[in-house]
């Protein structure tokens, strides 16, 4: 033991004595590079703004016609108003019972909500009000689900979204309208990485062919990583295992830091825990060594603009039994039936799913049920997250 301590001290000493590394690039050059990069980004954004009047018209028409989205995107002020709209089709109703929406406020979804604001919103939900659900439960038939992905504003995380679509159109048609669908609910705040990208899904072959626009470029490793994560989030749930890239008939695409590629394997791997941002559950990638207990405890922490999904006063002991995860409530305060609890349950279910669990049991909660969730029996992990219903 002593030996180990001495060894550690030596290592620490060596680390402390590592040479100082200095940047010899003059300050003004660093600034020029930074500002030039930022200007380039602004130019790109400026170009897309020219399309706004056109999209504005489309959006107005769409807003008038579209079935309400089940994702609640209301702002704090409108949450307390009784303006819920029921889902219209029977099939959808089964999935989205009690979910509400306010189309007039869709554009507010990506407002700069602070953790405090989101917490306030959680608190304002009263017992008996319709709850907002952030997951799609297990379905026998998932053929009307398509999967989208957006980056968060700081380009740190990929946020999956799930669209419940009609089966009148083909999967390819829906995927090629994803940008429009996402844009219509005000979820596209930054430049959409997959702008003008066309998808051709061959489900039997487990392949998606991705046609990139002529001047497609990736500027940074962050963008490259984001692109791949978005593609995986969008296509792996369909069983797609490979993305093949083409551009104007030419194969092999320069994906910037990833290099020149013709195809890439797609697979969602790793563990996540879920926090909340602007009404969306955001999967946070975790290191392989992080165990489920640590992942769940971490959900009590706010992370910048990401909001905790487990309130600080809620404590659990956590055990596994095969595919089941069991959380026994050990907190001292009585739990309330409110939106915060629904969000907590859903975030835990999604986190458990990423660890490979199939069911989650909540024990000693002293609440028989919350919304659609019967706490007296194990709950299946959900099919998908952040649902949006559309025609």
């Amino acid at each position, binding site marked *: 033991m002593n030996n180990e301590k001495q060894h550690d001290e030596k290592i620490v000493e060596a680390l402390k004595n*590592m040479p100082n590394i200095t940047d010899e690039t003059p300050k003004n050059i660093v600034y020029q590079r930074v500002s030039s990069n930022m200007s380039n980004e602004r130019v790109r954004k400026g170009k897309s703004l020219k399309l706004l009047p056109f999209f504005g018209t489309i959006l107005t028409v769409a807003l008038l016609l579209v079935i309400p989205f089940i994702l609640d995107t209301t702002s704090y002020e409108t949450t307390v108003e009784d303006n819920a709209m029921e889902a219209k089709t029977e099939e959808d109703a089964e999935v989205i019972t009690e979910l509400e929406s306010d189309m007039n406020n869709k554009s507010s979804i990506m407002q700069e909500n602070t953790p405090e604001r989101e917490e306030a919103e959680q608190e304002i939900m009263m017992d008996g009000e319709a709850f907002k659900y952030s997951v799609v439960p297990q379905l026998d038939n998932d053929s009307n689900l398509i999967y989208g992905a957006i980056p968060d504003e700081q380009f740190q995380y990929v946020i999956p979204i799930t669209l419940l679509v009609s089966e009148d159109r083909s999967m390819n048609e829906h995927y090629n309208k994803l940008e429009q669908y996402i844009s219509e609910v005000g979820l596209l705040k930054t430049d959409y990485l997959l702008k003008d990208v066309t998808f051709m899904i061959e489900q039997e072959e487990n392949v998606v062919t991705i046609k990139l626009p002529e001047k497609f470029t990736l500027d940074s490793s962050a963008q490259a990583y984001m692109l791949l994560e978005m593609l995986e989030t969008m296509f792996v749930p369909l069983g797609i295992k490979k993305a093949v890239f083409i551009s104007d008939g030419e194969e092999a695409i320069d994906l910037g830091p990833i290099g020149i590629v013709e195809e890439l394997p797609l697979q969602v791997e790793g563990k996540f825990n879920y926090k909340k941002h602007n009404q969306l559950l955001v999967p946070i990638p975790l290191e392989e060594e992080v165990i489920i207990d640590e992942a769940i405890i971490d959900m009590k922490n706010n992370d910048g603009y990401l909001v905790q999904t487990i309130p600080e006063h809620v404590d659990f002991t956590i055990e596994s039994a095969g595919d089941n995860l069991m959380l026994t409530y050990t907190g001292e305060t009585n739990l309330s039936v409110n939106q915060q609890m629904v969000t907590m349950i859903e975030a835990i279910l999604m986190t458990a799913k990423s660890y490979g669990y199939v069911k989650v049991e909540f024990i000693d909660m002293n609440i028989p049920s919350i919304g659609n969730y019967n706490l007296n029996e194990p709950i299946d992990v959900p099919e998908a997250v952040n649902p949006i219903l559309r025609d």
Partner: protein
Amino acid sequence: MKTVFDKLYDEYHQDLFQFIFYMVKDKQLTEDLVQEVYIKVLKSYSSFKGESSEKTWLFSIARHVTFDYFRSLKRRKKSVLDFFDWSESGESIMDENILPEAVAIQNDEMRRIYHIIDRCSVDQKSVLILRFIQSFSIKETAEILNCSVSKVKTTQHRALKTLRKHLSELDLKEGIE
């Protein structure tokens, strides 16, 4: 924007550069990543609320940027060199013999530690660099890594254990024992 940049550069640039350099060990890449950090910081500076110190906020963004880089690298390696095992060891290719020009390390033990640190996970490596090379406190390190103080202690302990293990293996390999 220039004023904010000047302030951040004057106070933290060399520390920031050093942190990212020890994470990725490539000067050109460090310059690129530092640039990405500034862009993110300048874009979101107005929303900085002072809940943590400016320095830990800046480093937490640097940590995100380097993590993103490692993830993209991991993906690239996976797609190009599927046979390479990235799961257990560190995120960059170990080169036991070559030291970058910028790193003048004469001491053998330090050279070995410099290389072996890549055997740690990215989190472990971050903790070692922040705590011992950059001299951040445990609390500051926890703020940067957005985790609890106890998590930093555990990660630090595991990181030192990893270094110890690989140093012993290297000793055996080289017949030093």
